[in-house]
């Protein structure tokens, strides 16, 4: 394998290497010394430089210039500079054997001194001086190979090409396993026994040929490598490949033409021809020759790969025979004149047909060649299969078009800057966002700090537009083969404005809300206090404390009292609705018995109804699900609806209250036999201060807020309220309360309890009882049976709980007992009591071998701070 980079090879140099350098300039000479020594320093080797044409001072000065400080090494003796008189030509005689011995000794010495090896640079000009034994140079170099192989030493022999004759060099250089030409390093593949070289006919031609062959092969290899690499790379690289191939194609073709010509002329050079053949076989291009009629006279074997033909098969055919009819016609038309003028053709794309019928895109370059009289003999050329490249190009074009489309259409600004923040690309949105033209920004500093990969907010200033706000994200990327930043900016000016507007509105709303709440408490106090005084004195007079009243006085005082009550109700209703609207009403939900509530309301209003001889009828199902609602609010709702019904039902009428237990909800209906409501008024019914000409009977006047409040209260319970009515046929008020799932009730309840415990700085507890079936029970338990057992457990547990401070919820076959104001100590006492009672129950029911009860206890705030965790901990079944 040929090395690609001389410098790397030098640095990779290992002990035991024997290198030969041919240099033509001082720079080449010194550069290699520097690299060689630098490496020795790094490896802690002992170093000797043998100088001849140069003085030690020259070398040291040079090293100093290059920044290689060897002062210390010189002092320590790690680095020495000597001249050949102290080594090679000691006593004026050059003796290879003595030198080898000397090297052996020096190597041992270096090793004994603690160095990892010995490294020598050797300026070979001394060998030019002539003298005794100098003819043994080749012998010496050969012997060195034997010595270095396996030793800890390395030497670089430096030959000045300007001073050594070609004959010597041609003999000496091939002996070195590693050859440096100038500063390029080559592995000497043809390195073999030195005798082989010695026996050959020496000539400058051989040397030059050898050197140029080395260089050429290396270059050829490098070019091929590069092309292969390039093909694999992305679009940018593909572009650069095109450039590259344009540059290299011509020299290759010309060189090959030259070689082919020489092949024809110097027929005797078999070796050279063979070399060329190798070259032709190894190159991925197809090389050919046609005569003046355009018939193939030569085709390299590669044609088989490209077109599927054996070379012999196409001899005698013309290139046009390999094309489709149309393509041949096109080429003839387009390139006929070129061929006629005997001009070369470069990179002509043409479509050929493979032997198997598949199309192949070839790129052809060819040059004419002439006989000794200057007449055209034919063309020689090279074809490359670019079908793959064409496909890639096409795909790239398509994909680029696609991506360009996306980028152009993008609402976000997309920019590419180089590492110095100079803008290299921007899409149309970027022009719009920055209110500028591409030309204004390309190549200029982008202006923003290029920060991390997260979106950051930036202020966008623009020439002739209001400044805006953007969100910027930066991604590291590559652009045309260089490191670059991909910047994406989204214009959020509008959103930002809206956000600010929203914040302002929110602030204002907060203020209004505060005003409202201030108003509520002010009204509460300011209205109620004087009202209390009026009311008190009115009732003092009415109660005849200051003295007896006349009949008239009594009548007037009663009117005063009635209106005071009405005013008080109005204030209360107003405050109620304000509080509901301001979200200041908190529901105190509990499991309530609606029937009980209805009965309570009816008994309160009975006196009023009795005065009008109105009869009540209450209908409810045999078993009614428990409702989870605020009992006070339910009382208020029923009081309003039933009170209204009484008000608008004429004497001897009837009011029916019905409760229906539906699948998903509980429906309540209050119907009367009153005058009804006209359809156009039904919609307004639940609005505030809406009292239409419904003929109310005697009794207290309404405030016009009752139904509005009722509606709000029902809706706070996620319920619905509506009315059905026909004029003169009475009214039917409906409201429904949706049944909540056990889970949501539990969650709501625990949340509420925790909030209350927190407000009053108390504790609350949760006890969860779950039934666990004992493995392989003798008795099978059905789901119904478990439900029955749970029911029993609830009843038993209730007996041990203070009813007003606890609630039991059955959620997915677990009993959750929530205990208000109950700490850990209390909780364990209660558990103990319930546990023993349940134990008795299990014994009594002979269930002790079938089921087991597990108690989980959670206390707020000791064990859990929120409802979710509390329920989670309570539901755990591990144990």
């Amino acid at each position: 394998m040929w090395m690609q980079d001389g410098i790397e090879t030098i640095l990779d140099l290992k002990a035991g290497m024997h290198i030969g350098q041919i240099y033509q300039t001082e720079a080449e000479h010194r550069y290699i010394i520097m690299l060689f020594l630098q490496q020795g320093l790094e490896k802690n080797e002992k170093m000797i430089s043998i100088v001849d044409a140069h003085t030690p001072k020259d070398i040291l000065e040079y090293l100093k210039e290059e920044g290689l400080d060897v002062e210390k090494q010189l002092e320590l003796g790690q680095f020495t500079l000597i001249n050949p008189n102290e080594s090679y030509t000691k006593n004026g005689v050059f003796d290879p054997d003595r030198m080898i011995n000397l090297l052996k000794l020096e190597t041992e010495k270096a090793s004994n001194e603690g160095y990892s090896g010995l490294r020598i640079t050797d300026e070979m000009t001394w060998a030019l001086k002539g003298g005794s034994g100098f003819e043994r140079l080749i012998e010496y170099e050969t012997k060195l190979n034997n010595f270095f192989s396996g030793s800890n030493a390395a030497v670089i022999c430096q030959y000045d090409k300007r001073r050594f004759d070609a004959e010597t060099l041609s003999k000496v250089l091939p002996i070195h396993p590693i050859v440096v030409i100038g500063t390029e390093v080559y592995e000497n593949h043809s390195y073999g026994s030195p005798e082989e070289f010695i026996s050959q006919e020496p000539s400058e031609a051989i040397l030059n040929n050898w050197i140029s062959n080395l260089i050429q092969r290396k270059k050829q290899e490098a070019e091929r490598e590069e092309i292969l690499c390039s093909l694999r790379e992305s679009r940018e690289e593909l572009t650069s490949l095109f450039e590259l191939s344009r540059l290299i194609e011509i020299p290759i073709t010309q060189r090959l033409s030259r070689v082919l010509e020489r092949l024809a002329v110097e027929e005797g050079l078999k070796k050279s021809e063979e070399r060329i053949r190798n070259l032709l076989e190894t190159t991925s291009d197809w090389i050919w020759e046609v005569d003046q009629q355009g018939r193939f006279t030569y085709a390299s074997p590669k044609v088989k790969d490209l077109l599927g033909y054996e070379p012999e098969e196409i001899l005698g055919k013309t290139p046009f025979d390999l094309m489709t009819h149309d393509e041949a016609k096109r080429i003839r038309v387009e390139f006929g004149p070129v061929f006629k003028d005997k001009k070369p053709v470069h990179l002509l794309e043409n479509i050929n047909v493979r032997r198997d019928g598949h199309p192949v895109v070839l790129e052809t370059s060819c040059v004419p060649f002439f006989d000794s009289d200057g007449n055209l003999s034919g063309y020689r050329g090279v074809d490359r299969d670019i079908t793959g490249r064409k496909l890639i190009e096409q795909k790239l074009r398509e994909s680029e078009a696609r991506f360009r489309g996306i980028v152009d259409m993008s609402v976000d600004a997309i920019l590419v800057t180089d590492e110095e923040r100079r803008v290299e690309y921007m899409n149309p949105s970027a022009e719009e966002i920055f209110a500028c033209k591409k030309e204004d920004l390309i190549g200029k500093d982008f202006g923003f700090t290029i920060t991390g990969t997260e979106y950051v907010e930036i202020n966008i200033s623009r020439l002739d537009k209001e400044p805006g706000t953007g969100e910027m994200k930066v991604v590291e990327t590559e652009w045309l083969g260089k490191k670059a930043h991909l910047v994406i900016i989204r214009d959020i000016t509008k959103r930002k404005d809206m956000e600010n507007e929203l914040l302002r509105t929110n602030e204002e709303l907060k203020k209004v809300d505060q005003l409202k709440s201030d108003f509520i408490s002010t009204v509460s106090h300011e209205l109620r206090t004087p009202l209390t005084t009026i009311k008190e004195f009115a009732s003092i007079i009415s109660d005849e404390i200051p003295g007896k009243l006349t009949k008239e006085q009594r009548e007037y005082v009663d009117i005063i009292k009635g209106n005071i009550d009405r005013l008080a109700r109005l204030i209360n209703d107003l405050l109620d609705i304000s509080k509901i609207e301001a979200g200041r009403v908190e529901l105190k939900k509990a499991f309530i018995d609606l029937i009980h509530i209805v009965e309570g309301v009816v008994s309160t209003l009975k006196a009023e109804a009795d005065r009008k001889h109105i009869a009540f009828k209450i209908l409810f199902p045999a078993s009614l699900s428990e409702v989870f609602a605020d009992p006070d609010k339910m009382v208020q709702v029923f009081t309003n609806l039933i009170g209204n019904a009484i008000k608008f039902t004429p004497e001897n009428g009837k009011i029916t209250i019905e409760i229906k237990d539906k699948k998903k909800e509980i429906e309540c209906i209050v119907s009367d036999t009153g005058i009804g409501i006209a359809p156009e008024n039904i919609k307004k019914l639940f609005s505030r201060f809406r009292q239409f000409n419904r003929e109310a009977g005697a009794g207290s006047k309404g405030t016009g807020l009752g139904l509005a409040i009722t509606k709000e209260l029902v809706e706070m319970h996620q319920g619905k309220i509506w009315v059905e009515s026909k004029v003169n046929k009475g009214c039917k008020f409906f409201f429904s309360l949706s049944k909540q799932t056990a889970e949501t009730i539990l969650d709501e309840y625990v949340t509420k309890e925790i909030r209350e415990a927190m407000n009053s700085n108390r504790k609350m507890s949760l006890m969860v009882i779950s039934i666990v079936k004992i493995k392989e029970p003798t008795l099978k338990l059905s789901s119904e049976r478990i439900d029955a057992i749970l029911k029993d457990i609830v009843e038993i547990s209730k007996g041990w709980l203070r009813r007003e401070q606890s609630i039991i919820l059955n959620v997915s076959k677990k009993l959750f007992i929530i205990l208000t104001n109950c700490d850990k100590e209390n909780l364990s006492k209660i558990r103990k009591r319930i546990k023993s009672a349940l134990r008795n129950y299990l014994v009594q029911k002979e269930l002790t071998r079938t089921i087991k009860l597990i108690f989980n206890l959670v206390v707020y705030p000791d064990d859990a701070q929120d409802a979710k965790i509390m329920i989670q901990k309570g539901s755990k079944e591990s144990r």
Partner: protein
Amino acid sequence: MVGRILIIDDEPELVKAVEVRLKASGYDVEVAYDGKAGIDKAKRVKPDLILLDFVMPMMDGYEVARELMADLEIKQIPIIVLTASQQRDLKTKFRELGINAFILKPFETSDLLEMVNKYLSKGI
């Protein structure tokens, strides 16, 4: 004399009304028109029951109650808070002091008397 009641309220007319009512029911009534005077009077006359208004200038009903409850002797005297507000946290605050009786303004005379009688365990 079936009991001595101290009214602490900054509304003289309302105080007058309550005073008339209570006197008519046979109670002995003492009045104070601000918190500080109320505390002084409570300490001096040692009433059997205190009617305390919540909203008062300088020292509100809660502060008055707190000071009264801090006095070991007065602590035993039941206190009924008169308030125009139904705020729940207000009630909670008083409850924490151990005061559980509230009358919402405007109150029914009968309600007031009923509550007073209950505390002083006397019928009219």
